[in-house]
């Protein structure tokens, strides 16, 4: 076999780019193996002697809790991080991959959780511009023909002339995969590729990858949290726990329970609160005829009316992009309402600091780093956002007592198991799951009973242990009498938690039913816009 390194020489690139357009008959993709990878970040041992082998044409799932080292391992393979010890082999050659571009030239491609597409360019433009080297003048007619020929060989097609913005989420993720294939990648690394997809879209995308792997066209290494997907599509599984390999095996030999045990180890399962059966009390949140506009004057909310009572969880289901985000933004004070009223305890509510405090309203928005944290401020400061301006966190009335903030943060970090080097570290450096835990600690950990909780996809992108913990904390709050508005794109979550389900479509509430008598088919029709 030819040394794959030869492909990385600049002179070889055009040849390779040509090969991407006309691959001809291909052998199976090269095997990828990582042996004894160790990686430290300061005092933190992120990876400790981790080995993994990706056989040609296999579909390998990498499982683990948040912070277990999955992303770090993949980044070491891709050359983002130099590993402190260990080696990565592609085919027969042991290589030290020093940069993502080098990995790319060896045929290793990465698909991220979030899109790396240029939204206002066409599919064809996105594909061509992703190439590592481009001629000074692009012959678009030739490129289009090449892309058409390329698409013809793919198991699915996207019109190359469409603008990426117009594509549905699932199509965008498929385009990310197509882009890697177009670039000639034979080994695909995917970091939670389905987290932004509906279950049906996820099945379609993963099914396609599975087929291509079966045909020996590609090998797949996928980071995932979802046992269902792992069981349905993967043939091999490696589980990481705290930077070490906690278990591995063939997917058909493993059960979700066995994998879960490998992920969390011998620790006892997190408390799962049972739903109390006290009846819902008086209304806490009332929204009447709420309307709001989003970018370019689009009417995102179009007369939303709903009520949330004391001690009940009202779930809002719907396909994302139907106004749920804007509804939460209005309730969080991040977007102005055009019409209508938001009433808490019968009083007009505008999410100002005094009102939030008087009515004890808390919010768990989605994307907590973007919506609820200042990345450059410390964990202690971020945990103090709700309380920094009142005793005991003030000094001399107008001053902020950093010492008091730090003490309270130490307690919250311990209680909510936030993994951080110290409470003085900028919160932006924490992993996504730990940012989420920190926000949860701030919003729920104040010790006082919360009257109204607004939660938007609170478990998005989290591993199952964290999901169980967050759900049980929300259920416990409900049992203590908190009124909860739960906006979720995950219907299973709503069925697991809510007392009542509302369906939102095109900025309106189009369906309502108590969870006990909820009909999944009817909800599905409502979500799809059929009344």
């Amino acid at each position, binding site marked *: 076999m030819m040394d794959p390194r030869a492909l990385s020489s600049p002179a070889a690139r055009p040849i390779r780019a040509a090969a991407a357009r006309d691959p001809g008959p291909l052998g199976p993709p090269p095997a990828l193996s990582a042996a004894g990878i160790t990686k430290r970040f300061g005092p933190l041992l992120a990876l400790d002697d981790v080995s993994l082998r990706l056989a040609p044409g296999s579909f390998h799932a990498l499982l683990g809790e948040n912070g277990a080292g999955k992303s770090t391992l993949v980044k070491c393979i891709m050359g983002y991080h130099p590993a402190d010890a260990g080696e990565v082999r592609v085919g027969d050659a042991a290589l030290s991959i020093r940069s993502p571009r080098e990995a790319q030239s060896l045929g290793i491609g990465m698909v991220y959780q979030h899109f790396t597409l240029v939204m206002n360019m066409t599919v064809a433009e996105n594909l061509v511009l992703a190439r590592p080297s481009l001629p000074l003048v692009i012959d678009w007619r030739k490129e289009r023909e090449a892309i058409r020929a390329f698409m013809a060989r793919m198991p699915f097609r996207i019109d190359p002339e469409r603008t990426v913005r117009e594509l549905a989420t699932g199509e965008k993720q498929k385009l990310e995969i197509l882009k890697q294939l177009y670039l000639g990648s034979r080994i695909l690394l995917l970091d939670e590729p389905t987290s932004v997809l509906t279950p049906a879209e996820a099945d379609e995308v993963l099914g396609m990858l599975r087929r291509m792997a079966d045909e020996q066209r590609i090998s797949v290494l996928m980071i995932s949290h979802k046992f269902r997907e792992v069981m349905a599509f993967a043939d091999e599984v490696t589980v990481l726990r705290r930077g070490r390999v906690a278990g591995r095996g063939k997917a058909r030999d493993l059960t979700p329970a066995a994998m879960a045990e490998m992920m969390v180890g011998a620790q006892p399962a997190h408390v799962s609160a049972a739903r109390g059966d006290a009846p819902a009390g008086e209304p806490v949140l009332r929204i009447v005829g709420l309307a709001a506009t989003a970018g370019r004057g689009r009417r995102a909310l179009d007369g939303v009316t709903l009520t949330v009572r004391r001690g009940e969880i009202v779930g809002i289901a719907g396909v994302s992009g139907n106004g749920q985000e804007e509804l939460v933004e209005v309730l969080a004070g991040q977007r102005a309402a055009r019409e209508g009223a938001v009433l808490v305890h019968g009083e007009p509510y505008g999410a100002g600091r*005094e009102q939030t405090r008087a009515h004890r309203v808390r919010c768990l928005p989605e994307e907590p780093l973007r919506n609820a944290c200042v990345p450059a401020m410390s964990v202690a400061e971020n945990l103090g956002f709700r309380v920094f*301006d009142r005793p005991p966190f003030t000094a001399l009335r107008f001053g902020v007592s950093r010492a008091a903030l730090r003490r309270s943060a130490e307690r919250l970090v311990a209680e909510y198991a936030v993994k951080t080097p110290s409470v003085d570290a900028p919160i*932006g*450096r924490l992993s996504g799951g730990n940012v989420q835990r920190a926000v949860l600690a701030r919003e729920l950990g104040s010790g006082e009973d919360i009257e109204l909780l607004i939660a938007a996809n609170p478990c998005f992108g989290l591993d199952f242990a964290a999901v169980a913990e967050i759900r049980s904390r929300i259920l416990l709050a409900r049992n203590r009498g908190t009124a909860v508005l739960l906006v979720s794109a995950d219907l299973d979550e709503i069925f697991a938690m809510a007392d009542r389900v509302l369906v939102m479509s095109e900025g309106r509430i189009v369906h309502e039913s108590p969870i006990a008598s909820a009909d999944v088919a009817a909800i599905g029709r409502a979500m799809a816009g059929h009344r």
Partner: protein
Amino acid sequence: MKLLPQALLGRETAEVIAIPVGALAASLLVFGAFVASQGANPLGVYYDMYRGAFGTWFSFQNTLLRAAPLMLTALCTALPARLGLIVIGGEGAVVVGGLSAASAALASRALGAPPVAVLAAMLLSGLAAGALWIGLAGALRVYRGVSETISSLLLNYIGIAILNHLVEGALRDPASLNKPSTAPIGAENALGNLPGVEVHWGLAYGVLACALCYVLMHRTTFGFAAAMSGGNVRAALLAGLPVKRLVVITCMLAGACAGLAGMVEVAAVHGRASASLVSGYGTTGILVAFIARHNPLAILPVALLLGGIGASGGLLQRTAQLPDATVNVLQGILFIAILASETLRGRPRAAREPEVRQAAPASAVA
């Protein structure tokens, strides 16, 4: 928070100091090449600049006199920067502050007020005029979505035009023939010198303002709220903070500082309002604020340095036969070097540590 950051020897602290110092050294090199091309010996020029700025007690006093207004105008850019706003309207705020201080002095003098009352009237009207001026830029930002950078820049021209209009018209002293000015405020109403030195009280105002602004921005709940809003406006809104009000108040404080600089120029230096108020202190203040990374305490030494560079222009002209605008060339080189060096921040780390992700600053509101 301790007085000194705890990681004094840590990498980030080293970076905070090393990057501006490196930029300074690089711009001195470039400037050296420039003066060499003009036929002067760079080392001689630097020595002359040192002498002209800090070499003698006389030249040091001159430096202090120039540093005082720079401290105040630098605050005009540094305070809004904590909220993520880039305000470059210091010059206009100096002008309207000086103009309204002179008008207040003339009005209160006409009413027969004693010197203390005249000075108090000047102080208050200077502060108020500057506050309204930059407050307007802040309000346009949050309520109308106008870029504060553009509006404060344009407000400079408006302020200067108003000054020229009034000193050449309604407020013109008929006795000021060559240089249209307002009537003098009167020697008895002038702002005096600090005890024992030939430096007016404006320096004390500048130092005090920087100290107060440091405490406000780094130690108080107001500063905490401002840092939240500047760091991520969505998080600040979620926490229920009145972000728009914070922006307007901070802009008003910033403008008040620059307005105070204008008042000091009128009350201690010129004794009247004239086109001399347009002296570039507002513009140099932007440079001071950026070099000081918008930290009010760091503004003090930086203002001294830039004041010294300005003060050395005269000596340079006499000894090296270079035009006194040469020091402006150095200022320009410095500004570009400092702005460019910002991109080096965190470079050696970026490859290994996850980056602190950026979030929307308060300027993104409205």
